[in-house]
């Protein structure tokens, strides 16, 4: 892979991570992370939508009039999200029942809008595609980390499979399944990640 793409990927996943660095796309990060299976489907949706939206916006960037570009971007995003919605409903109807509204909300996920506006509207299609992919992966990495902790602490399971001999020694932290647990976990993640960034900046 040529070096500019590697840099875009690294920026998106680590140093410019959408969740803890740019604080975008928080809503879904909190809502779907109570079970790892939900999270995986959500991540698939976001990666799909952000990659293809970035690509499409970039291809069309010289044809969209400046004044109405927001609404055009929203419509592009909405079309891809609709596809994701239909795909998830077909593959996993049970999961769709729970995360359905949040899948629809990928439309207003600021990560996608933000990257389309900040990167894709000024860059060539291929780098934009990689940038979208990188942001989607960065988002997914943080979400999966949160989901693993929340599912283990909250239910004593991982991907629905119980921990070994869970009933003998494990006490479930009900709080982790409820909304406050999501806020605390995300706060701790942001804290850890930012503390490292501060250290690196001062070193």
């Amino acid at each position, binding site marked *: 892979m040529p070096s500019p793409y590697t840099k875009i990927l690294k920026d998106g996943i680590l140093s410019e991570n959408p969740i*803890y660095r740019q*604080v*975008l*796309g*928080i*809503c*879904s990060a*909190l*809502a779907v992370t109570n079970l790892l299976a939900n999270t995986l489907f959500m991540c698939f949706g976001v990666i799909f939508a952000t990659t293809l939206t970035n690509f499409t916006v970039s291809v069309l960037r010289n044809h969209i009039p400046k004044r109405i570009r*927001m*609404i055009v971007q*929203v*419509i592009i995003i*909405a*079309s891809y*999200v*609709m596809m994701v*919605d*239909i795909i998830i409903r077909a593959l996993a109807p049970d999961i769709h029942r729970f995360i*359905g*509204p949040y899948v*629809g*909300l990928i*439309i*207003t*996920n*600021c990560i996608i*809008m933000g990257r389309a506006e900040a990167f894709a509207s000024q860059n060539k299609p291929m780098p934009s595609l990689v940038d979208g992919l990188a942001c989607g992966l960065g988002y997914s990495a943080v979400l999966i980390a949160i989901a693993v902790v929340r599912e283990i602490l909250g239910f004593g399971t991982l991907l629905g499979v119980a921990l070994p001999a869970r009933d003998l020694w494990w006490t479930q932290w009900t709080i982790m399944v*409820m*909304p*406050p*647990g*999501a*806020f*605390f976990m*995300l*706060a701790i993640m*942001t*804290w*850890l*990640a*930012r*503390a*490292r*960034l*501060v250290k690196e900046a001062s070193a």
Partner: protein
Amino acid sequence: MTALGDMGFWASFALIFVAAAFTDNILLARFLGMCSCLGVSRKVDTSIGLGAAVIFVTASTSALNYLVYTYLLLPLGIEYLRLIVFIVVIAAFTQLVEMVIERVSEKLYNALGIFLPLITVNCAILGISLFMLNKPYSFGQAFAFGLGGGFGWFLAITLIGAIRERINEASLPRGLEGPGITLIIIGIMALGFVGFSGMIKI
């Protein structure tokens, strides 16, 4: 669900309003509208401004989207287009409101003006319209749900704004400043609102 149908109009209206505002708070229990909340809640006045705009827009768009869904999308059998239709309705509505306010009242425009474009990308608005579809509401009840949801968001962001104004004075670890501490505050508030849950079932 039958209980809602048996009740008088105003009783079910009030019940749905309270449930949407407190037991099912859109920000603290459904996690919607977090991005603009984290960005704007630094001060109480701006929180109130954005909160008021959100109440107005959610109440109106949930009613509008209800009509569009029931009388246009369902009869034509194109419910799967709802995402794109809803977002266009919301974007068009906020644009329209912005133009009307600009004409009618300069003062209100200056107070609300910057918040209106933010609202289009506020997921709470689209979220309320989508959650509304999961429940068998009538038109009046859908309006109550939108109004209550907007009010709940207003309440949460105003409280968070007030706490953040105070916390500005405190010295925090560098990594925790900004979003970190705000998330912890919201988490503690969410704990309080969990106390409401189960009081009303809709």
